[in-house]
């Protein structure tokens, strides 16, 4: 069974209407709104983006069973891939997490020191882990890939090391959701909790897609480079 996939002749606006979560990725490719009736291929051409890579991201983002064929990617796609991942990291840290942090600190304040402090400590720990995880990617994985592109082989490292690193970033976020829904006393800041929960669910979903893009596109692609 082959599910429907997005193709280059679809209008970009239709693609986004079909899965509105894709509005998040536009920025990561530098695409601005106002593209009228242009197709995916036309928009990609305007911005000098590789259409096959753009579609691959859209499809991984939207279809659970989609397995991209990374052999259609070219060396010249790597800068787009890296910049896409870096811009995502930036967005998570500086826009989403900072927002969630502000709301959580407000709730922590309303909860009083006894509960509030533990909530703050929990979040700070989580944030630190996320920073370290992204840092590792940017300072170890991405430079390694840049080296590979230049044809230099680093024998001490391989993308397999990256694959085996399992972070519990996702577990912590799901714990935060449980705490806010089930365990923080019911009289504490209901509306603020609704807001922050919405933000956390959104972030969780987007982070899941982010790891899918790393698992299904980045890792297999770099593996094929290693073999060359």
């Amino acid at each position: 069974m082959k599910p429907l996939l997005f193709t280059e002749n679809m209008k970009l606006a239709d693609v986004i209407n079909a899965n509105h979560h894709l509005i998040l990725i536009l920025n990561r490719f530098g695409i601005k709104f106002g593209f009228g009736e242009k197709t995916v291929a036309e928009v990609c051409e305007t911005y000098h983006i590789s259409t096959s890579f753009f579609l691959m991201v859209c499809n991984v983002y939207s279809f659970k069973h989609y397995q991209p064929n990374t052999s259609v990617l070219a060396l010249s796609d790597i800068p787009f891939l890296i910049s896409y991942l870096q811009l995502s990291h930036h967005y998570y840290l500086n826009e989403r997490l900072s927002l969630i942090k502000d709301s959580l600190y407000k709730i922590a304040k309303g909860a009083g020191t006894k509960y509030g402090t533990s909530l703050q400590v929990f979040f700070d720990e989580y944030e630190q882990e996320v920073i370290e995880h992204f840092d590792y990617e940017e300072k170890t994985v991405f430079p390694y890939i840049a080296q590979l592109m230049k044809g230099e082989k680093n024998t001490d490292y391989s993308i397999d090391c990256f694959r085996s690193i399992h972070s519990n970033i996702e577990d912590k976020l799901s714990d935060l959701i449980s705490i806010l829904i089930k365990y923080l006393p019911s009289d504490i800041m209901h509306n603020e909790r609704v807001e922050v929960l919405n933000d956390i669910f959104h972030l969780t979903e987007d982070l899941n897609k982010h790891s899918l893009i790393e698992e299904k596109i980045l890792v297999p692609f770099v593996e094929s480079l290693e073999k060359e």
Partner: protein
Amino acid sequence: MKRQSKILLVESSPIIAAGFTYLLSDSIYFEVVRVLDALDKLHEKIHAIKPDILVVNPSLMDYSKRYMVKSMFREYKDTAVVAFVTTYVEQAVLKQYHAVIEIDDTKQKIESKLHDALLDKNNNEPKENYELSDREKDVLIAVAKGKTNKEIADELCLSIHTVITHRKNINRKTGIKTISGLTVYALLNNLIDESSVK
């Protein structure tokens, strides 16, 4: 030869219902004898057909009754109740069914799950309890204080294996997976106070 087990299927999608029926059409163990697209006349039909297995899509169940599947069908002791899942359904709901069939299961897998359901309907397992036991609370407190499994085992005179089982149960019951999450849980439930967190 033993007669085939009769299945009553409740599924609103005609394609899925036809597909399910077709898949089992050459089965020597099971036969779909009737398909309903809604639950309206279910009880009447169960009385009339006396199915061995009721296969039902949980999303058709009245949402407010989703946790009451067991009691809803208690009067039909001879019928196993199997969930046929096509969309996300929470684990706590699925636990009440004798088996859970998923949309992309193979024919072999479906048959084996239906066999399991027939076996399982006779074991009336006790109701799932989400309260932590006293022992689990002891373990939780120790985990929240940052102790290792070995330290906890020594302190509470348990084997490491038992400590691990308690921790699994704590994770399952609270839904919390990380140690720092459990620390917050313990604080919020007044099992420990701030000064004991290192």
